């Protein structure tokens, strides 16, 4: 029985490491959004198991141990010293094992989040009450005017598909926070410091950056579109945008 268990564990380890290696070789850049989804699924399973155990026990006991008569009293066990310690140590070891497992997974996911790929394109982000400004490596800027007329609102953050984007961010006035739901990233921006996040647009998509740190009356309207478009279109857009800016 023990041998079989050991053999099965060995096989499981080999297979799982092969899967991990295979998934690593398909793309050299680890996408934080993918890592996030994976970790989220793992944690959800964990939650449902723990919630299920406690919830099912509570429901079962609430049903089973209803008072049989008005003057019935509980028959709860009197624990010996050894039982008391066991009921402390065993759950703690189990919780600790789970914590360390989640912690280890969380740490490696975190490393993905904080390690910017070498080929990443840099965009400077400046938050101020209440809009976002994006400055590209060649000095071209882009922004978005929430209340502007259609066609004059601006383009927001435009990025090419297939290139990781690193954002170096700051603020001119109060705290803001730069969050893009689609790419599962978020970080505060503040005056006097530069913070960073990076994300990896792998396909054409339009999403939003929203301000997620409270910043006053128009906090809820401090958003801008994030457009991931093919490289050629992006190059054209950048030239067009630079020209527009020269005219302004």
């Amino acid at each position, binding site marked *: 029985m023990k041998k079989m268990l050991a053999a099965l564990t060995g096989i499981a380890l080999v297979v799982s490491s092969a899967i991990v290696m295979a998934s690593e070789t398909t793309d050299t850049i680890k996408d934080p959004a993918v890592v996030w989804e994976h970790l989220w699924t793992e944690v959800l399973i964990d939650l449902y198991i723990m919630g299920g155990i406690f919830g099912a026990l509570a429901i079962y*006991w609430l049903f089973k141990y209803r008072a049989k008569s008005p003057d019935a009293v*509980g028959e709860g066990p009197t624990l010996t010293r050894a039982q008391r310690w066991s009921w402390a140590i065993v759950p703690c070891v189990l*919780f600790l094992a789970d914590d360390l497992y989640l912690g280890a997974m969380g740490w490696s*996911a*975190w490393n993905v989040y904080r390690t910017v790929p070498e080929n990443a394109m840099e965009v400077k982000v400046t938050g101020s009450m209440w809009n976002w400004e994006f400055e590209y490596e060649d000095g071209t800027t882009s922004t978005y005017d929430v209340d502007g007329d259609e066609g004059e609102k601006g383009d927001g953050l435009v990025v090419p598909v297939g290139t990781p984007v690193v954002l170096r961010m700051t603020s001119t006035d109060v*705290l803001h926070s730069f969050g893009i739901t689609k790419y599962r990233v978020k970080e505060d921006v503040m005056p006097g410091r530069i913070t960073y996040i990076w994300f990896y647009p792998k396909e054409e998509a339009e999403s939003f950056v929203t301000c997620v740190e409270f910043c*006053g009356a128009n906090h809820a309207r401090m958003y801008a579109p994030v457009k991931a478009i093919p490289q050629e279109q992006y190059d054209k857009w950048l030239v067009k945008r630079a020209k527009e800016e020269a005219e302004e």
Partner: protein
Amino acid sequence: MSAQSEKINWYEWIFTTDHKRIGVMYLIGSIAAFGVAGIMAILIRIEQSSLGPTLAADGLTAGQQYNQWLYFHGAAMILAFLIPGLTGFAANYFLPLMIGAADVAFPRINALSVWLFWCGIIVALLGFVIPDGPDIMWTGYPPYSILSGGNTAFYVFTVHLLGFASILGAVNFLVTVIYMRAPGMGWNQLNLFVWSTVTAFVIQLVFVPVLAAAVTMLLFDKYLGTHFFDPSAGGDVLLYQNLFWFYSHPAVYVILLPALGILYEVVATFSKNKVFNYKVCVYGGMWGVVLISGEVWVHHLYVSGMPNWIRIGQMISTLLISLPVGLLAISLFGTLYKGAITFELPMKYAVSCLFLFLVGGLTGIPLAITALDLHLSETSFIHAHFHYIMGIFATFSVFAAVYYWFPKMTGKMYDDKWGTIGFWLNFVGVNVTFLPLFKIGVEGMPRRYWNYEMYPQFETWHFVAMLGAILVAAGMIITVLNWIMSAYKGEPASDNPWNSKSLEWTHTVSPPGPGNFLKDVVVDKDWTPYDYRK
């Protein structure tokens, strides 16, 4: 409160040093704060229930008034309802009774603390009357709180007054428990509610001064021209956030521990059972929480731009909170095992708390993990999480406490039919309100948004949440009316209607008179408050 004295002697109430009357004054004040903050909650839900301005003519007004509601709702619920409701009302009234004491150690300091508490509530309410009320959220982060046109001073002075009241209460009750236990009562014979408030007061005593310092620096920055938090003059924006959460995370346990303490009492009484694994619950669970509470605050700053190493370090310490909280949960759920369970109204609230505790506690685990938090932080998910565990769970335990001790405080019985209707409205309502917020939070709905034109797909769920909030409003009105009506016109209750073994039920009348006990309480060495088999 007794039937003989229909005419209320205001002078006696205001200048009382009786811990029971002070407890009642804490209850009235905190329920008043709860009522006003609850109205804010309804307004918030209505504003969000449809896209665009719902309760204002234009967007700017909508945003401004919405922010003031958010500020008051958060500040009042936490500082003026939950903390005073649990440590002010419940501890004040029942802690001396549970340890067999005639009063607290310093009755006049106790009176001073309730006055400060009332002054704090008045200052907070004045925020609505002045033309530029605070709009800085209950967190008051600079630079916004310094640059804002809102009157930050009202926020600072509210915190000062309520904080001072808390510190006085903490010293008072710790001394009371240490020196005034009935002869023969050892540390392992205390009610778990007593232990839970002791641990909560230790946290208050250690951490409240840090909050007071932080908001005082804020006041100086805004009105006296200092630069503690101004980076352009060598200050540090993040300093405030660190100081604030260094107190305000432990403050969560100041709420959680007494709320759990109440549940141990209620669950033990209505299961007629001893609390499972008492010593581990106290020394592992409660003191474990105290020990870790001061090392986890950075999980509120996961996306604030803190150094990488501390975000990982405090991810581990935050996950480790599951150890003591797990032990507390095992003791709570384990108390049901082989019990003789009946489902009176306080027990209904307690059982619903088990569910709220599971939902709120478990949804904290993904938030503890830094990488997951980079998406979940500042969304409706986090909003729903802390409402489950801190808002609703703790509120329901206060309600369980009021119903459980209602016969003791008034000598009357509450109206069970209306109480039960109120309970179901509350319980269904909170879940209809907050379960959808988990869903749209994971999908990206940001917090503190009066409008969400970039995410129109969330409108339906916001509308559902508003319907839930209306159910809760109805339930709360019925509940509070039930208390008031029953206090005047309820059926007389016996001294120990639940057949509890705890001193406040077995050794005194309902309601207890001045001095609490007719003769001095002495307990023998194998007495415990949960000994139902004898």
